[in-house]
């Protein structure tokens, strides 16, 4: 009997994921299964044994209700977002044509893709389920209850993975057929991380902790969590810890709900599979550029109105029309908002300043780091033109300042205005200082990106270089603060960041001429 098509596609998907460790591929799954068995039988119980009293005390406390909900919710969200974000980062629709020309139905493609990655996510599920069953063992939970807990984990997380896989496939088919679509995909790939970061920050410093401390008072959070199946699963586990021998009607109803959620999401996924695996959409319509408005004319004037002004406008247009670039700026602004909402204590401007320094440096890196990302050929256009490389650097500097400095100044001004007693002098002084520092970060970032060019945004090179900029900014700011105190930190930061920035820019200019 021939292998079902979904199994063939699943096997292929598994092979692709395992291609980097091909030499252990035949032994990988047996090895993992053996290791997981050791973990479940020996390791997890041993870990739990070491802390058994504390663990039991915790499970019988009110905080467990919220914590288990949050834990399952976090894993649920991760299982949902990960395939989507992975698909968005590098949307490829090329293979779709070969697959669609074969006698395979969209449902088989979808199921195969899901089955192919399931073992890897399954490892995470087993690790989590293993520790829970080990923890609940000493409470006296029976085999049926244990079976239900494992089923809860599998059904809940694989529902999330399934939904994520379906959405990823839908986005890929819609966005993968045009350059514009791929740009939207990359932009979404960045922005989609914000809610997850928000949840993380909230867990670190926001209402989730309140929910842990006093579950009764955090109605909104438990309400939001309550609508997701992860919470139904959490309630089942909590119920078992309170009454290990009993399977109540509530538990059965919740388990039924999880089963129903899984079945409905599978059914819905198969229903939309036709739309997820198709070349019918024909991509997105091509965009057209309008005539230059006030903004571009002003930028042209700022650039002197001549050839340099036109160059500046062209660079700004190319930057601004890529949603990926705008999403990076939006991501930084979003991070600032989230940090201020959840992590910074009210009335602590220094905390806000330290965190903002890192984000301002990241913003500068994201804005000017684009200089080499279109590859060497794009740089050679400037090399070919008379004095082209110097003009490129000047234009990139001005463009970087135009975007980075106003955003940083507005953010810091808003932060300062939220402090009740801030004076006008302090407001102007701080915002002025931030304007100078952020413009230095632009110089520094451009220098770094020309010295160590990232010729593509794939492979993490771009982000790694951006992180160098961030670490430099943090190191400089915290170093000045610790060594010289509050009074000298800012002047040192201003002068050193500019000095290093200029030095690196010269180094970058030299390296730019050597790129071949």
């Amino acid at each position, binding site marked *: 009997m*021939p292998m079902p*098509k979904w199994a063939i596609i699943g096997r292929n998907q598994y092979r*692709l994921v395992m291609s980097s460790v091909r030499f252990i591929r035949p032994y990988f799954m047996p090895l993992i299964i053996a290791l997981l068995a050791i973990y479940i039988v020996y390791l997890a119980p041993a870990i739990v044994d070491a802390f058994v009293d504390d663990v039991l005390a915790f499970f019988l406390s009110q905080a467990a209700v919220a914590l288990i909900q949050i834990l399952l919710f976090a894993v649920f969200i991760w299982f949902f977002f990960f395939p989507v974000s992975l698909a968005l980062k590098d949307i490829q629709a090329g*293979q779709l044509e*070969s697959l669609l020309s074969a006698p395979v139905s969209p449902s088989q493609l979808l199921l195969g893709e899901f089955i192919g990655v399931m073992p890897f996510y399954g490892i995470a599920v087993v690790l989590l389920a293993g520790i829970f069953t080990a923890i609940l063992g000493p409470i006296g939970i029976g085999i049926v209850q244990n079976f239900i807990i494992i089923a809860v984990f599998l059904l809940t997380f694989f529902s999330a993975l399934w939904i994520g896989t379906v959405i990823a496939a839908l986005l890929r088919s819609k966005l993968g057929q045009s350059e514009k679509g791929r740009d939207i995909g990359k932009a979404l790939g960045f922005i989609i991380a914000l809610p997850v970061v928000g949840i993380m920050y909230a867990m670190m410093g926001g209402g989730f902790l309140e929910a842990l401390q006093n579950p009764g008072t955090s109605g909104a959070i438990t309400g939001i969590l309550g609508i997701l199946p992860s919470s139904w699963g959490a309630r089942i586990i909590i119920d078992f810890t309170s009454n290990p021998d009993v399977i109540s009607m509530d538990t059965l109803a919740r388990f039924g709900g999880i089963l129903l959620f899984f079945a409905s999401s599978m059914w819905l996924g198969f229903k939309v599979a036709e739309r997820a695996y198709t070349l019918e959409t024909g991509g997105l319509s091509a965009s057209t550029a309008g005539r230059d408005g006030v903004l571009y004319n002003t930028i042209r004037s700022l650039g002197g109105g001549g050839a340099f002004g036109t160059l500046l406008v062209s660079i700004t247009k190319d930057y601004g029309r890529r949603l990926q670039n705008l999403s990076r700026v939006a991501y930084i602004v979003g991070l600032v908002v989230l940090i201020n909402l959840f992590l910074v204590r009210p009335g602590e401007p220094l905390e806000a300043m330290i965190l903002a320094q890192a984000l301002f440096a990241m913003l500068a890196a994201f804005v000017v780091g684009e200089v080499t990302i279109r590859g060497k050929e794009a740089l050679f256009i400037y090399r070919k033109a008379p004095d082209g490389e110097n003009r490129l650097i000047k234009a990139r500097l001005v463009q970087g300042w135009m975007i980075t400095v106003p955003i940083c100044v507005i953010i810091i001004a808003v932060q300062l205005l939220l402090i009740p007693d801030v004076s006008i002098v302090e407001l102007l002084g701080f915002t002025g200082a931030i304007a100078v520092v952020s413009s230095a970060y632009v110089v520094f970032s451009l220098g770094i990106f020309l010295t160590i060019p990232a010729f593509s945004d794939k492979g993490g090179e771009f982000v790694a270089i951006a992180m160098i900029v961030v670490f430099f900014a943090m190191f400089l700011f915290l170093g000045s603060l610790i060594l010289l105190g509050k009074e000298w930190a800012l002047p040192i930061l201003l002068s050193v960041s500019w000095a290093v920035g200029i030095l690196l820019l010269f180094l970058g200019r030299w390296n730019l001429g050597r790129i071949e």
Partner: protein
Amino acid sequence: MKVITHTENLSKHYGKGGEIKAVDQVNLDIYEGETFGLLGPNGAGKTTTIRLLNCIIKPTSGSATVNGHSIIDDPDSVKRVTGLLAESPGLYDKLSAYEFLEFMAALYDVPGDIIPERISNLLKLFSLEDRRDHLLEGYSRGMKQKVLIAAALIHDPPMLFLDEPTSTLDPRAALMVKDLIHELAGQAKKTIFISSHILPIVEELCDRIGIINQGRLIALGTVDEIISQTGKANLEEAFIDLTGGIETRELLAWRDQKIADA
């Protein structure tokens, strides 16, 4: 001669109200064993036609049959009798040539016991047997194209669709692909449907050609027939004449103006 592919007012429209006519009322017969070339400028509807005939997309109106199977009512049977080399196919770069062909064979229901031999024969035919276990990411463009053609042949279909088979290849690789197509048509007796905008390829390889422009099939016949229909000296001129090329003089008019002003 037996008609292997027949289209009747085949149309594919996109956009609101179907204002973009990617393929518009195409009527075409392809005969068994012939090599047919569909010529047209970029965006003329060549790839859409191929996708329609391979059941990758559905027609807005009209119908077609391939080897007696309807593309609307019996898509799976159509897929089993056709092989497709797509214009810009995504290869699974992290698979070896053998693994990729094994995957494609399984998708096309090639019986498991004959898959190894089939792959081995194809790899030999394409001189790739020494590199069967190398990952595709390390292959040159020409070698990748060979693997893709092998994949299109893995289920031994009577009809092969090649969408722009040489457009991204260097001259040496393009020559190699041309030779392969010759052999497939001559020795393996395959019916081959090539779409291209490279005139010499089509002129050299095809028994008959069709010219498509803005979704409509505007000429059909042998190369000589099309040249004589238009009264031009060669296929290039006939193609420009049929598809409405812009006169060079018109394009360079600004230079004359500049000289006159000076």
